[in-house]
């Protein structure tokens, strides 16, 4: 079991002829993912690592001969909204947006249409998601052999606002013998398609997942939203959180953002200190050191067994 992806998941890559998209396509194919097409306007008829390229999503769907499950969108920020709306209006239900620096207003529009059409967006500014040994959708974990080293099948679901830290944390869980059920790089922007609390019901329903690890940062209210979700839903899953960027609480750092656009602190509830307090009040264990994660997860799993 897993969330959002299975062995049969089909997806396309929008912007497939870009340098990074070409690499990403190869990585996903090598991992065993079913990349059934690509879209770059004006490049119809080409191939990228054997994947046919089309001008429109509709052509890709027609060529496939039935609905396509997902799309990885890796086009420049100015074209991202249109690409995502095109995917949604052509029946695609899972969209991973890799692109950085997409204005919030555009993201909010995409998310609102996705909600109306029953589609789910992961990102923007993310590396996608991976179910170890099953499917990799996006650049998460890198080339297939590197992804295999960091991600082994297991018991822990991972959600992270940082793409690189998704792999760092998953690798430590793999090294500790715990493994990963599904790992999602949710994106580093202020507004994203799927925040922690919105993915929790999927993990809750996934038998393979026995615990959750989240990586979090200053800025925004998605940790408070998770804390509320946990309190309201009596979740069976223990959650271990790591908060990076505590130095941003210093007076000299006021008004600055570091690492990701979403780390901009716009209210007192957005600070690291305040978030840690909220998470802990909801029974979520916030570890001080990144290397404590596997041991604390083991401890929590021992307590629930």
């Amino acid at each position, binding site marked *: 079991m897993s969330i959002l992806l299975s062995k049969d998941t089909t997806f396309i890559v929008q912007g497939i002829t870009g340098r*990074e998209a070409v690499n990403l396509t190869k990585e996903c194919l090598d991992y065993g993912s079913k990349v059934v097409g690509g879209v770059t306007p004006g490049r119809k008829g080409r191939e990228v690592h054997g994947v046919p390229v089309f001008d429109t999503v509709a052509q890709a769907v027609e060529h496939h001969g039935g609905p396509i499950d997902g799309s990885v969108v890796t086009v420049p*920020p*100015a074209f991202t909204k249109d690409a995502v709306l095109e995917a949604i209006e052509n029946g695609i239900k899972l969209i991973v947006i890799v692109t950085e*620096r*997409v*204005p*919030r*207003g555009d*993201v*909010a*529009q995409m*998310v*609102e249409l996705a909600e109306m059409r029953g589609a789910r967006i992961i990102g923007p500014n993310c590396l996608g998601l991976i179910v170890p040994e099953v499917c990799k959708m996006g*650049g*998460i*974990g*890198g*080339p297939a052999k*590197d*992804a295999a080293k960091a991600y082994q099948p297991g018991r822990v679901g991972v959600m992270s*606002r*940082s*793409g*690189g*830290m998704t*792999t*760092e944390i998953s*690798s*430590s869980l793999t*090294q500790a013998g715990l493994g990963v059920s599904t790992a999602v790089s949710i994106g*580093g922007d*202020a*507004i994203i398609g799927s*925040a922690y609390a919105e993915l929790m019901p999927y993990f809750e329903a996934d038998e393979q997942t026995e615990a959750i690890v989240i*990586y979090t*940062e200053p800025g*925004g*209210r*998605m940790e408070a939203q998770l804390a509320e979700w946990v309190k309201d839903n009596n979740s069976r899953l223990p959650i271990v959180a790591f908060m*990076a*960027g*505590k*130095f*941003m609480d*210093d007076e*000299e*750092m*006021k*008004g*600055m953002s*570091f*690492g*990701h*656009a979403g*780390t901009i602190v*716009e209210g007192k509830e957005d600070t690291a200190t305040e978030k840690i307090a909220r998470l802990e009040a909801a029974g979520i264990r916030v570890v*001080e*050191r*990144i*290397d404590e994660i596997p041991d604390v997860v083991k401890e929590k799993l021992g307590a629930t067994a």
Partner: protein
Amino acid sequence: MRFYEYEARKIVELAGIPVTKYGFCTSAEEARKVAEEIGGPVVIKSQVLTGGRMKAGGVKFADTPEEAAQHAEEILKLEINGHMPRGVLVDPKAEVKQEYYASVVWDGTAKKPLMLFSDMGGIDIEEVAETHPDHVGKGHISNLLPVGDFEAKQVVAATGVTGSQLNRATPILARLARLFRDNDMTLAEINPLAELTDGSFVALDAHMEMENEAVGRQKKLLRKELQIAEDDTRETYEPSDFEKNVSAIDAADHRGVIQGKDHGFTGNLGLVIGAGGGSLTLTDAVRNQGGQPANYSEIGGNPSVAKACGLAKEVLEKDGVEKIAVMMSIVSNTRVDIVARGVIKACLELGKDPGETIAIFRIPGAWEDEGFKILEKYGVEYCDRSVSMWEAAGRAVSKIQGAPA
């Protein structure tokens, strides 16, 4: 991107929201002229991107044009919280019957803009929301559908406002919501929104912020209407030489991304670190183990040897930097060997021994075997993913603390 009050005033005016007959002036003489045109008592307000103007003496009232010129002269020379004013705003002294509050902000959880309205204007809205929640109206707007006046009306009516006040305030809030969406704002606030003694409504003070990511597509407003220069980025502080040099190196080569910041950092351990989340984690790990970072940095997206070298050199040339720690979370795109070459090259070009200068190299991932081979050759201490980011940071800190002063 932040705006001065006179610009925010112009933005609401362009959106069809009534404002007083105001003038932006950069000299005492201009202030005198504007005061003459206005005729009657005026208020002179310092134009700075910081709060606390009133307390600092940056807002003054004048009954005559001569007095206005005199106040403008003083205010133009007055530094507030380290900021010199860009000019002064000369505004008629309004005869206010009642003050209201109107704003639109992002609700990141609902992923929609949120309209706020209160009949208790002029004071901090968060305070009003806490002490008089029944005096604050709230309502989300769609990102896709047109903003209806009725949506604004519902928010105004929720505070108990009715009669001609309701009918005057409604289109103002609706226009504010439209301008928020159309202009990619992250904050659009009118406080106070004033009802004058003649019953008309005007925006007496406005506060606007635009999303940095959208600045490129708002050229018409920024360059044409507001005449804001391209290099006028409105950062919260002046970039340092280090920051300027790092962004110049980054801009010179399209491969990969490097960033450097040193505002608020004064330590002796240079950080050549990455990527976004990794840099946040590592900066905390250094500080929490007693280390003093000299800077913050980010490496990502597979930079060239020249770029990695350029960043390392800039860090090493900062005052007081004795050693650098080169650390990242596991990389899958950035190549370990390229970063290794870059940082070693930086040491050699500055006549430093890489083995002494690089306190630790902890970048596991793509091309690590090739990278580790190079590091070994130069006697640099390195580690793979079996050494955590916390532990690597700790090793760097203990090396620098053991180093002779």
